[in-house]
């Protein structure tokens, strides 16, 4: 089953209607990208439904500066509109909020990000607390936080215990990474994609490379596809274990913390032994994978089986530890309704009853031929549900790993089949992959054999927009669990 991609361009005043009618038919808003186009801007809404992506675009005339707001029909669009205003100065008509998201007032140093001279003046100040009342105060958590965290500020509004509102401010880390793609070669683009969200290097590189490969109409070799699967699944296990480690740390489960961080280290070492890099960087490249120096299938198989058994036994013990489960149960609930409204991704979506996984709903590469272990159905939407989803996904990843290793063993591997030569035509193309955080999207525009524009949407960005909805009745000590159960990378949010 191939995933269908439909593109259409509509007039600017028809844009909202076109998106709305698609959203009604079981679609979700995957992303909203702004791309420079003939002096003006082209807005592309990526809509996703089972087995299909739809790109609905509209062109905004130069100097027009405003466009019809999608946040009027779906809250999922709000963060994209704030991001597009920060980066391109385009102001949505009848918007909900334009609070600075990725660039803060006074810190816009990137000249290409300033199409309007007066953008800095138009940029709103950071908003004041939205909740008012006696005894309420706000805790600025970050950007320099206690512990080894990425820089982000959460403004927590609270009367002391309960969390009434959380406002994430990810702009501290903004690196202008999308601009950095422009003009680079395809190979360099893959290296940069790996650094957009470093903990999901492989998923980003795969999404990017698949977009490039679509523009050449050639399929990479089966063994390259399987090697990509191996690295992507090891990365998923490492990320899920990281989430477990954070949970155990927050719950002061010292032995469990030590165990899971030990397993994670073993996964990282296994990755390094297979490809020479602990984050599998430099493996996935346009046309396939770099030639593996060492890949002893039997040895890898053995280590994977041992790890699977070890992790499984520790997980079983942990999920019977009442003092741990008590902290997760009912914490940070995202209801199915909220999840659907925001079109959440990855474990956050699957924990609240939406079972979409890009690997099976929009199958790509070797995933088309591999068997999946389904994750348990749950619509609790709390940190425990997300944790359970991760546990099932770890088991699923091991299952996929074994199939991929078997598949590689069956294939005869001629030397030059790892990376094929691509003839890449100019044009626009969409690539996607399932990272451990959820679906990653890349919109790539190629002109004269170089990258002209690249837009990426990490799952972290999309899921972070629903983060503040996860505090209906939680207290400040739950914060660490909710953050760990989301498992997001700030680098992917601020770009």
């Amino acid at each position, binding site marked *: 089953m191939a995933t269908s991609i439909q593109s259409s361009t509509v007039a600017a005043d028809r844009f909202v209607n076109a998106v709305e009618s698609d959203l009604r038919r079981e679609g979700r808003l995957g992303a909203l990208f702004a791309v420079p186009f003939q002096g003006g801007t082209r807005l592309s809404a990526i809509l996703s439904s089972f087995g299909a992506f739809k790109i609905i675009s509209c062109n905004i005339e130069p100097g027009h500066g405003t466009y019809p707001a999608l946040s009027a029909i779906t809250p999922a669009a709000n963060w994209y509109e704030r991001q597009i205003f920060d980066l391109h100065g385009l102001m949505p008509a009848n918007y909900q909020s334009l609070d600075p998201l990725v660039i*803060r007032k006074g810190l816009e140093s990137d000249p290409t990000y300033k199409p309007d001279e007066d953008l800095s003046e138009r940029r709103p100040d950071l908003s004041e607390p939205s909740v008012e009342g006696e005894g309420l105060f706000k805790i600025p958590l970050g950007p320099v936080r206690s512990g080894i965290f990425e*820089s982000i500020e959460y403004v927590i509004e609270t009367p002391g215990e309960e969390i009434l509102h959380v406002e994430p401010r990810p702009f501290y880390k903004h*690196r*202008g990474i999308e601009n*950095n793609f422009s003009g680079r070669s395809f190979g360099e683009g893959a290296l940069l994609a790996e650094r957009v969200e470093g*903990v999901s290097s492989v998923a980003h590189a795969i999404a990017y490379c698949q977009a490039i490969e679509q523009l050449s109409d050639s399929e990479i070799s089966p063994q390259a596809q399987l090697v990509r699967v191996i690295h992507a699944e090891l990365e998923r296990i490492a990320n899920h274990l990281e989430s477990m480690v954070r949970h155990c740390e927050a719950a002061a489960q010292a032995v469990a913390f030590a165990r899971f961080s030990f397993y994670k280290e073993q996964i990282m*070492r296994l990755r390094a032994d297979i490809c020479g890099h602990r*984050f599998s960087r430099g493996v996935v490249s346009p046309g396939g994978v770099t030639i593996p120096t060492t890949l002893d299938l039997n040895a890898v198989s053995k280590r994977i089986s041992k790890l699977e058994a070890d992790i499984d036994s520790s997980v079983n013990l942990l999920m019977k530890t009442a003092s741990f489960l008590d902290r997760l149960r009912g914490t940070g609930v995202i209801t199915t309704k909220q999840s659907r409204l925001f079109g959440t991704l990855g474990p956050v979506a699957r924990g609240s009853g939406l079972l979409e996984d890009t690997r099976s709903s929009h199958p790509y590469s070797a995933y088309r031929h591999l068997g999946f272990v389904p994750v348990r159905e749950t619509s609790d939407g709390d940190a425990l549900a997300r944790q359970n989803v991760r546990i099932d996904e770890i088991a699923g990843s091991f299952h996929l790993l074994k199939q991929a290793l078997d598949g590689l063993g069956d294939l005869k591997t001629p030397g030059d089949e790892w990376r094929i030569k691509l003839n890449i035509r100019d044009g626009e193309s969409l690539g996607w992959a399932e990272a451990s955080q959820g679906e990653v999207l890349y919109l790539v525009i190629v002109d004269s054999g170089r990258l002209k524009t690249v837009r990426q949407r990490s799952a972290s960005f999309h899921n972070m927009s629903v983060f503040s909805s996860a505090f209906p009745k939680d207290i400040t000590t739950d914060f660490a669990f909710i953050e760990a159960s989301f498992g997001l990378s700030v680098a992917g949010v601020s770009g």
Partner: protein
Amino acid sequence: MPWVLKGISDGILTSKYPRKSDGYGETWRGSIKISPNNLGLDLSHVAKSCPTNAINIEQTHPQVDLGLCILCGNCIDLCGDIFSFQPDFESAKLDRDLLVVPETVEDRERLRAVRAALYLRVRTLRRSIAIRHVDCGSDGSEEWEISALTNPIYDVQRLGITFTASPRHADILLVTGSGSTGMIDSLKETYLQMPHPKAVIAVGTDAISGGMHRNSASTAKNGVDGLIPVDVYVPGSPPSPFGILYAILLAVGTISNRGKPC
């Protein structure tokens, strides 16, 4: 009770580094080796295609700046006769210029002076080191490698190293990331809040030079170097946990530049 048994089930997992060498760290490909043979070859296409312009072919011998290199292997792909990966996790240096390989004799002499000065400054820290980390626009991987230092394998507490929440308790500042504009004020403030004596370690190629983000207008020109005074540079994208541990020990002078405890 089941956790007690679980905790002791695998015996001691902790590495003996730096007292004894560690097999894993030594296989880490953390550096680029330039073969002294075939030097007549034209390398301009290799230098040109390096994604971070880390290769200098202007000199009589080609040089690679590890402060820029992201170890992607592009040069090795193109010209395996001259470039190859070099297993070396102890690649952290006390001087930015020393990251250019192969090093020269003058480099070594200068290093001795830098080292002596740093040693005098931080000698009171040797047995108890509190570390504060600040992310200044990293891609998130450096944070994983730093927090790996607390796992049972590296277990840095055995060496008297702890991570602290407050910069006022910190002796060493670990900085990651390419110096994003939004973090510069916070970084400087954190540095100022630290008591003397203090040392700063730039962790990863991004922090040393900006790496692939070097020319981005949203990050500092040269990573965090120049924003605050950096004492130790750890190359790598990201560096390995052993590489970071070596840098911490190097900063407080409990290890020699050759990896032996002193």
